[in-house]
């Protein structure tokens, strides 16, 4: 394949990955990795290197809009980043002792199982705000944003310790598998902390850039970040993510939840199939 062809294909596919990733708070690795390995026969290490960069591009490209619109909860994001960065370092530390195939299988199954509670509340729009108590109160894990119809939505976070524990796992997975693990972040915020779906996906989007940056250094130094692959991916994702961000601010919570459930199912299946060598 000619360099030009490769770059054009990657650029166009990455725009799509950027739109999807920014909508549901993931990094686009779900799209980028199989496209590179299965679609174009690129070495898995280059695919993972490109995925790490695509996560940072999705995050930074969309977060500018989400933060300005006050959809992202900055305090929730910073608090939970304690867990993701600590987890990412631990993941890098134990990576050589862990069977990544088994890990991928376990993580894929976790994602598929977590579809159940997600689907059960598929029509939920805004959760009833629980009382702000304990650690959530101390850390002011509360906020509000303006919905599409102009109404203000107030929300409080519950069970911050569980949310933080979920983030340690997300960071661990990220350090071990080279993915942004936005799926797990959204799930923790949605199921444990009971945040509105749009707050969960945009706050996850905000955080995945930092999680990915934590493990990016190692991939860069190893020479896994191949410019010929990463350049069209990064530019495509940046464009796609800024488009997706404009869509999300106008989308409804139940719609975002449905798209997230679909992407989660695909991501879970993809991991299980890859682990089983299919």
């Amino acid at each position, binding site marked *: 394949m000619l360099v030009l062809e490769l770059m054009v294909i990657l650029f166009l596919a990455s725009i799509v990955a950027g739109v999807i990733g920014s909508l549901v708070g993931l990094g686009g690795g779900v799209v980028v990795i199989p496209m590179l390995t299965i679609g174009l026969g690129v070495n898995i290490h280059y695919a993972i290197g490109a995925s790490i960069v695509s996560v940072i591009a999705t995050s930074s490209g969309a977060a500018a809009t989400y933060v300005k619109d006050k959809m992202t909860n900055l305090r929730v994001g910073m608090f939970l980043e304690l867990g993701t960065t600590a987890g990412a370092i631990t993941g890098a530390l134990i990576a050589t002792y862990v069977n990544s195939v088994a890990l991928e299988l376990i993580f894929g199954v976790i994602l598929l199982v977590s579809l159940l509670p997600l689907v059960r509340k598929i029509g939920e729009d805004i959760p009833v705000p629980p009382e702000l108590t304990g650690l959530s109160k101390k850390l002011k894990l509360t906020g509000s944003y303006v919905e599409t119809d102009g109404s203000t939505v107030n929300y409080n976070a519950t069970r911050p310790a569980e949310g933080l524990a979920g983030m340690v796992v997300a960071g661990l997975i990220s350090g071990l598998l080279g993915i942004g693990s936005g799926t797990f972040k959204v799930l923790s915020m949605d199921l444990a902390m009971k945040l509105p779906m749009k707050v969960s996906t945009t706050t996850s989007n905000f955080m995945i850039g930092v999680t990915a940056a934590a493990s990016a250094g190692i991939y860069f130094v190893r020479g896994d970040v*191949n410019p010929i692959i990463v350049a069209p991916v990064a530019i495509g994702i940046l464009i796609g993510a800024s488009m997706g961000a404009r869509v999300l601010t106008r989308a409804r919570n139940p719609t975002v939840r449905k798209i997230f459930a679909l992407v989660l199912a695909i991501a879970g299946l993809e991991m299980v199939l890859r682990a089983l060598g299919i």
Partner: protein
Amino acid sequence: MNLSDPDSMNTVISKVLRYGVLLSGAVIVVGTALLAAHAAFSQSGSFLTYNPNQVPHGSFPVTFNSLTAGLASGAPMAIIELGVLLLLATPVSRVLFSIFLFAAEHNRTYVYITLTVLALLLFSMLVTPYIPIFGG
């Protein structure tokens, strides 16, 4: 701008992210245009070779010396990698700015939380790649 106003925190962080993205994106576009001018109609295979037995695994510049040499001679690959590094620096600078913004809010708890995140992040990005037990 009144930094103790919570709204300005969103504005500043949003700007940090936007400028980071625009700057890194522009550098990558320049590098890509130069690369396309040189090699658009070459076969991509030789650019995609992965050598598992040597570090770095590819034949593009990733060390400080090879990057600075490449940039001095205007090598497209080095320019793209510089853009990628700027992109990687964007979330880090966002964390860094948050420290000052929480400090301006007199939000001491969050200053400590953010400082811890920054320390963990910098350790992971800059130190672990060179420690063998981390796979460096």
